[in-house]
């Protein structure tokens, strides 16, 4: 039973408190992980939260990717550890080559904070078992470098492998290729998501509770593990 979920704080991480709250609300135990420690503290899954790690200097996620903790995380993720990267975390996962493609500047060149509807593309990942494919949820987009780009072949492969985790339901607010809001690796344990599910866990402070499923999914890994195995065999 997965219950201890590590939340990594890099210098400039901002939504780490929100990710911790979401894990708690979903019934898990958030475990703070420090970028400078080569210590995963035995967690069952890891969230790379949103923010501006290292001020987004050089390129979003480009410096964080080399943090000491990442030297532990990258091989663990490759070996199947569930990892969810949200916003800046998604950027870090792309920079770390745990996910294909890259995030680029929004087409409007402005930071965009807006409630957006996304349609879940697959529930075969560790982070989406709580959803039905085709289900639409409302989450919070807040990013300036959120347009997902990849070459045509990669985009085709993502679709063919059922690795598009979510697409913007009302058209891309930032110029993302194929309206892509999030993707997974082939095994389904690593997921990157540009909008923030951790800000949609309580109608008091966000647009409903639609985002809670990402965190609930990670607490019951047995099902997706089987699905991931099946997916890997495709």
């Amino acid at each position, binding site marked *: 039973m997965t219950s201890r979920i590590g939340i990594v704080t890099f210098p400039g991480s901002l939504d780490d408190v929100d990710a911790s709250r979401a894990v708690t609300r979903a019934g898990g135990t958030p475990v703070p992980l420090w970028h400078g420690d080569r210590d995963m503290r035995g967690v069952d899954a890891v969230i790379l939260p949103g923010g501006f790690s290292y*001020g987004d200097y050089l390129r979003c996620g480009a410096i964080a990717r080399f943090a000491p903790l990442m030297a532990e995380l990258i091989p663990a993720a490759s070996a199947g550890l569930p990892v969810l990267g949200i916003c800046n975390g998604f950027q870090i996962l792309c920079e770390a080559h745990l996910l294909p493609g890259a995030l680029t500047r929004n087409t409007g060149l402005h930071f965009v904070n807006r409630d957006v509807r996304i349609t879940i593309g697959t529930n075969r990942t560790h982070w989406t078992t709580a959803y039905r494919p085709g289900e639409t949820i409302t989450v919070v987009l807040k990013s300036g470098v959120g347009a997902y780009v990849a070459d045509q072949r990669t985009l085709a492969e993502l679709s063919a492998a059922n690795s598009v985790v979510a697409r913007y339901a009302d058209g891309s607010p930032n110029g993302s290729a194929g309206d892509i809001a999030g993707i997974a690796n082939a095994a389904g344990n690593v997921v990157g998501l540009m909008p923030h599910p951790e800000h949609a866990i309580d109608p008091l402070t966000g647009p409903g509770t639609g985002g809670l499923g990402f965190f609930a999914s990670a607490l019951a890994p047995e099902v997706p593990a089987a699905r991931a195995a099946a997916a890997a065999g495709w």
Partner: protein
Amino acid sequence: MSPADTVAEAAATPERQQPHAALGLTDAEYASITSQLGRRPTDSELAIYSVMWSEHCSYKSSRKYLRQFAEKAPPSAALLAGIGQNAGVVDVGQGYAVTFKIESHNHPSYVEPFQGAATGVGGIVRDVLAMGARPVAIMDALRFGPADAPDTRRVLPGVVGGISFYGNCLGLPNIGGELAFDPCYAGNPLVNALCLGVMRHADLKLAQASGPGNKVVLFGSPTGPDGIGGASVLASASFDAGGAGGDQAKRPSVQVGDPFMEKLLIECCLELYEAGVVVAIQDLGAAGIACATTELAAAGKVGMTVGLDAVPLRDQGLTPPEILMSESQERMMAITAPEDLDEFLKICARWEVPATVLGEVTDTGRLEVRWRGDVVVDIPPASAAEGPLCERPAQRPPGQDVLNADDPGGLAGAGLGPGHDAPGAGERLLAELLAVLGSSAAADKTWVTEQYDKDVRGNTVLAAPHDAGVLRIDEESGLGVAIATDGNGRYTLLDPYAGTQLALAEAYRNVAATGARPLAVTNCLNFGSPEDPAVMWQFTEAVRGLADGCLALGIPVTGGNVSFYNQTGTEPIQPTPVVGVLGVLGDVRDRLPSGFSASGQQIVLLGTTSAEFGGSLWAQVTRGHLGGVPPSVDLDAEQRLAAVLAAAAAAGLLSAAHDLSEGGLALALAECCLTGGSRSAEPGGGPGLGCVVTMPAEPPGPVAFLFSESAARAVVAVRPSAESEFARLCGSHGVPARALGVTGGDALEVTGLFTAPLAELSEVRQRTLPDLFGG
């Protein structure tokens, strides 16, 4: 490198001419310095006095008047720290205290909009951090020239971009503010930034050095040549002769912000507080090290000795006066006990924040600054920290009577009279509503607010476009605060005393409209030159109005900021006091959004409507008129209205409340229809929820009911079955309540006059800013 001017040299060369006038010091002020020191000041000392005695740091023209805020302060048990500290601190219950302050960064934002506005946010956040609080939210009150002016297209996107860049990167939700346009701000935009911080009572930090032997630590960004004394003065030939090579005149007068370093500073400071290793702390803002050392020492009535050689520099060529005056951003100064120093430096290292011991607290009562073995400053710190007082003549301008006599009541024949009962009145009123709604003042602000992260940290319960930002403080109990800022230059121009009270009343009402109980006040007083007697009159009237208003409302001023010299040539801006009010909500789940969210609910107008069009948006937009007197002030009615709203919110009687201000009832109803519930603009949803209302068939008539800006009013939506209880509540508080109609449908329908489809209203309101500033 020429040797610096030392104390010894100053004593030996009393005859040396110094550029005090170029540094902004009068002959009398220079003579006063010389007499206090018993010799001429060194270059470094002169630099310190020139910045500390500047209007910006010393409040020399305003201090005399600002005392009223303390003298007339209502008795309030809530105030834990008041005026004079970096920011006021207010008890909000359950062991929590909040600190909040608003500050201007007007001139830098005109010169370099992006960095000017960004560093404005950075500065106010450090002020709040220095009180021992975690900064938890920001707001921005912005005023620009005409929205369609070419230069506004340079300034506005830059300012918004700078606030977005800095605030978002800091991880502070931006929960509201203002956006206003007027030709008077074309050459002098107003960029006022507010920051809110939260702490436990015990964590309060004061900027008072104490304990001889304690260490003085400078930490944060290295010091560079940015923002030195507004650049021009120190770049004067007489001052930097023989100084660092290169063209100093080209050095930027606007500082450049590094929000990443500021984020690290925030987390680092909070960990330092937690560890209990901070005796006193102050942020470095205007006047940099000069200000921090003199103020820390003066406030603690101690001496201090510091060495400038230890200051980490980005430019090794900086001279001692430049190091003292540099306004490089993202720096703090703290006092720590020697036994805690290791722990202090270890925490800084963990956050990768450079930290350096500059010196220590002494019992000499002198501020002594050394550089390369020589003493370059030796002064009593209080002499610099407590600047001179400046008596400025104040004179009511002769044109004021003419302005006040020009009441838009004179336009009655053109729009206020019985003509609206005639056929075609409905179309005319609808056209006026659309004109008001499409004006830049009433435009949908999403183009701006969407660039700000309002959600980070997960405690934002309401943000723009709701009446006030509402932030949860305690997740268990639901304790939270509401904050709003308001100002109206047109009202204040017509009557600075009443106009300032109207700004106070509107912010108070905005906070009350969320269901919160107003508790404390901050202010940012934006005015023209204090050397202009007419401006000084406006200022004195505004301060008197605010102090009297706060006394009447029973909420103290906790701090504020004065910004003078806001003018283009000799033409001052409209006097623009921006007033921030903070309120408390026992449980943020009771908060009231400003928009309608459910059909079939009764709509009630609270308060009394008179025909008051002086300074109104209606007069401006439909008649191009500014004159007369502003709406009358009734602070007793404001208090009763606030009490009703708080009680009704706590009892769950209402689903929405919206204050009436600019644009009157018509604009308020349109906003209620278009805003929606707590989370405005459902993605993929329609343009809101309509209503059907009927204007009373009695004086002051439909135009005034729709567009008058009478104060102390709000419109509310009553939950089903709560109508009679709410009516009783209004009756017991003496608040006039009049049922206007019911929510529902997809249009704003005013019976017998017009039906405006929401899609049309939405289109008119939404397109204004994107059309001007791009998709």
